């Protein structure tokens, strides 16, 4: 376990690991998203109340899940970076924050477009929507803070602290639909009980959730590889790797 932890902290080891893993992630992402899209759009039955507009769920739920879990992952990386001074933790945060922001934006956008035919409004200032908007600003804050501080170590520390402060928002998002009266419906899928939807809708949703997770995994690795190349550009192994990439 500790040996693995140490390897994970080595940029070169991680770079080689990512390079080997990425094609597998890419292909399984493509297969899962293709299956999920065809299943969700063509074969899943329409909702008895919402008709076909509910098909937005196959995007909305995966991106909203990931928007939150990416933030939690950033906060864990922030803690690891602060405690063990692991450089790769900051590399991860730098790489993933823009992806998290993009997914949070998509969760808000698809939610608004879904809200119009379902609730009759694009936006309400209720707890779930407002805390998701705050999440988007937290991602922007992490990106801006990193860009604003020149010294890399100081930037890494400040960003790590910000991710840890912001993580308070995550349980607020999660329980907002239970704590407050909101337009947003409570969770349809829980780990502790059977899903509140029939399997013809739930299974394609599960496929889409998995597909989006693998896609984000690919994005994280691709972006971390670039970060490593920038940070380690003066090392011999990076220079050798670049020289080997002739003809690309």
């Amino acid at each position: 376990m500790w040996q693995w932890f140490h390897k994970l902290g080595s940029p070169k080891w991680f770079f080689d690991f990512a390079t080997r893993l990425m094609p597998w992630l890419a292909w399984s992402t493509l297969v899962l998203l293709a299956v999920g899209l065809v299943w969700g759009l063509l074969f899943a039955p329409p909702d008895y109340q919402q008709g076909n507009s509910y098909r937005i769920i196959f995007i909305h739920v995966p991106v909203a899940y990931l928007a939150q879990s990416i933030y939690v992952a950033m906060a864990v990386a922030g803690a690891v970076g602060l405690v063990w001074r692991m450089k790769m933790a900051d590399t991860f945060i730098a790489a993933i924050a823009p992806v998290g922001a993009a997914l949070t934006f998509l969760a808000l956008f698809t939610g608004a477009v879904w809200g119009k035919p379902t609730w009759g409004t694009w936006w309400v200032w209720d707890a779930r929507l407002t805390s998701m908007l705050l999440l988007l600003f937290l991602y922007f804050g992490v990106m801006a803070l990193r860009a604003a501080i020149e010294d890399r170590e100081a930037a890494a520390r400040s960003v790590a602290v910000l991710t840890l402060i912001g993580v308070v928002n995550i349980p607020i998002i999660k329980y907002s639909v239970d704590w407050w009266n909101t337009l947003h419906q409570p969770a349809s899928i829980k780990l502790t009980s059977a899903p509140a939807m029939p399997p013809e809708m739930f299974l394609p949703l599960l496929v889409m959730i998995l597909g989006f997770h693998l896609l984000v995994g690919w994005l994280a690795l691709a972006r971390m590889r670039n970060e490593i190349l920038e940070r380690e550009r003066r090392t011999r192994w990076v220079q050798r790797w670049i020289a080997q990439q002739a003809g690309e």
Partner: protein
Amino acid sequence: MQFDSLAAFIAMGTHGPYVWTCYGVTALIMGLCVLAPRWRLRRILDRERRQQRRQQAAR
């Protein structure tokens, strides 16, 4: 299959514009997310290779 024709599929009852806006914008943004690291890798490789050539010429 839930739809009788391509027209019915595109119309999605009356919800076509909502559904396709969501799928379109998501495809666009996720597509850009996939392309961005590839573009950046190309820029890094170009820059570093130019530098390697310069260093070799200087030697």
